[in-house]
């Protein structure tokens, strides 16, 4: 078997374990390439049956319209259930402080909405598209990652995960985060997208965009959440997104990649990691991801 076949078979196996072990699973869908791959894998795992889980999106209100349109169209085409919950609503209901600063991120706030939606539907398993190559705290996480009632990850209490036998037994109130594409790298994902002819939101490919060139050289999209001031350097460039997160904390990269093949050669050439190139939130501290995960983040 080719390595992509092996990664695919492993992911399908994990998805079916979720279906077999849990009463109320959910697939967390963001409109990004990793969760799009998950949906594609779920089709392979469960068709001609329906998905044994709904797609759940935590909408921060700062999402790219292209990703939202893609999300709605996909759910409609597949005739699968889509649940959307809004960070905006959580902020109002819980009287939370919205993101501050020049680029107000709602990354931390989405944990609240995520935990609420888990509680609302009593989800016992949430499937996500996180990969171990993204970040070194993720590199330590199990494929079945048990969270307590507060959604917290305790790296010291991880269950041993031996062979590919997955223990998803939990008590009521707890939930398991499941990462079927843990062992895929960014390049694997793109090679898979190419092989399977998976359609993606347009912002993954090069397009002309007006951006703020930040002091550390990142290209931040200008949008209604970012207040411009006179010192801002505004540039118009051909860019694409390597990851699709919030438009306030995800930066674009300069690119001339029109096709998946172009993107693959670009990634092979690039010397900067996916998160390093595009995420402002992980630059905060060395253990930023570990701390957010401990707090219930994906």
């Amino acid at each position, binding site marked *: 078997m080719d390595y992509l076949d092996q990664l695919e078979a492993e992911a399908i196996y994990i998805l079916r374990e979720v279906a077999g072990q849990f009463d109320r699973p959910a697939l967390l869908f963001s409109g990004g390439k990793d969760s799009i791959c998950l949906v594609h894998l779920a*089709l392979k795992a469960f068709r001609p049956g329906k998905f044994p889980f709904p797609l759940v999106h935590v909408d921060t209100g700062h999402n790219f319209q292209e990703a939202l349109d893609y999300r709605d169209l996909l759910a409609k085409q597949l005739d699968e259930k889509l649940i959307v919950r809004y960070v905006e609503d959580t902020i109002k209901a819980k009287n939370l402080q919205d993101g501050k600063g020049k680029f107000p991120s709602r990354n931390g706030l989405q944990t609240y909405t995520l935990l609420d939606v888990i509680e609302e539907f009593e989800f016992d398993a949430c499937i996500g598209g996180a990969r171990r190559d993204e970040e070194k705290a993720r590199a330590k996480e199990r494929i079945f990652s048990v969270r307590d009632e507060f959604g917290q990850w305790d790296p010291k209490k991880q269950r041993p995960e031996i062979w590919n036998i997955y223990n998803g*037994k939990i008590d009521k109130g707890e939930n398991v985060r499941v990462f079927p594409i843990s062992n895929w790298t960014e390049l694997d994902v793109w090679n898979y997208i190419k092989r399977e002819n998976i359609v993606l939101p347009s912002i993954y490919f090069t397009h002309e965009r007006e951006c703020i060139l930040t002091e550390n050289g990142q290209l931040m999209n200008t949008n209604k959440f970012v207040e411009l001031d006179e010192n801002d350097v505004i540039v118009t460039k051909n860019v694409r997104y390597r990851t699709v997160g919030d438009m306030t904390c995800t930066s674009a990269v300069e690119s001339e990649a029109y096709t998946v093949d172009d993107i693959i050669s670009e990634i092979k050439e690039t010397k900067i990691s996916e998160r390093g190139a595009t995420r402002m939130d992980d630059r905060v501290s060395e253990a930023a991801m570990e701390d957010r995960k401990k707090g219930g983040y994906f």
Partner: protein
Amino acid sequence: MELLRFFTAGNVDDGKSTLIGRLLFDSNSISTDIIETLTRQSKATGNDADIDLALLTDGLRAEREQGITIDVAYKYFTTEKRKFIIADTPGHSQYTRNMFTGASNTDLAIILVDARNGITDQTKRHSIISSILGIPHILVCINKMDLVNYDENVYNQIQEDYLKFSKELNLKNVSFIPTSALTGENVVTNSENLAWYKGASLFEFLEQVEIPHEEENQDSRFQVQYVIRPQTEDLHDYRGYAGSVLSGTFKKGQEVQIFPLESKTTISKIEQNGKEIIEASAGESIIIHLEHDLDVSRGSTIVPLNQQIESEKNLEATICWMDNKAFQAGQKLILQQNSFRTKAIVKEIDSKIDIHNFSEIESDGTIQLNEFCKIQLKTAENISFDSYKKNRKTGAFILINENTNNTVAAGIIN
């Protein structure tokens, strides 16, 4: 392109992190922003070296603080020929369960030996665990050759000692490479200092070592993970058994037996990715349809009629205890073998295995964290299995504590 999964066991002191760092560095798998972060951190920790490569692999705050590997980290790199998954596992005996976890589904063990120290207790422990797990290839990296003046005699002596010690372990394929991870010698490129060594560098070895795919040639086994029943108008009678071919091959029209029912039927259809296929082999995720309407559910095992599988309630197994709390007699457990679960109790603890010399010692009735024991298990329902030696997929299980839900042991069926 093929996929090779391997594990490295050891600690910072053994040069393990340096070695992994080398592999990632020299295969261009580390990005510049990560190197920048590392350089910044390395300065902060006051390390003399330009970059402290351990910081690359030790991803948890506690690990960085203590300078040790506590839990498995997974790292990835790709060359022209292969994709590699490294399970970077801890060396300390107190984290044996984490090492066992990382090692469990790999094809190759890299065992690091410090050329100055030769074979140590740790070398023996890691080799014995590799033997218990039936890891197909063992590569002994005799590292830090730069610190013994690249002396061939030192290398030969360690090799001889290792072969002598490991004679009883039934290790499958043992190879040796002299390296210096720090200088990179024999990691990616061959070295003039080690001109007397004519074999492959570590990189060449990793690209060339045969990936065994043992399960392809074993008896055919399939286990049901999930039953697909759309119950829609046009698919009213559709009933597909979704699962993975654990070993061997399955064909349309094949006569099969379903365990634990022991009822016979025929495979009427095999589907993969929405298409009908004639044959599926080990590792593939498929949907099987059966001729007759039988009580087949999650955990049922499908076996060709002309092949045997054990099916009973009494098992002899070797387990590694993984719970912080010691085993208690009478403890109610759940045994999980792939997707099959049944209640189980430990009937007898036959002996304890000394993990440093592989000898069996009399059991005192207790099993503590990280201990290996031979036990007798009794299950509530019949379990269909092979011995682990015969089939790594059907001969392995975990034990779950019914109260805490924790995975408390990993077991292989003898």
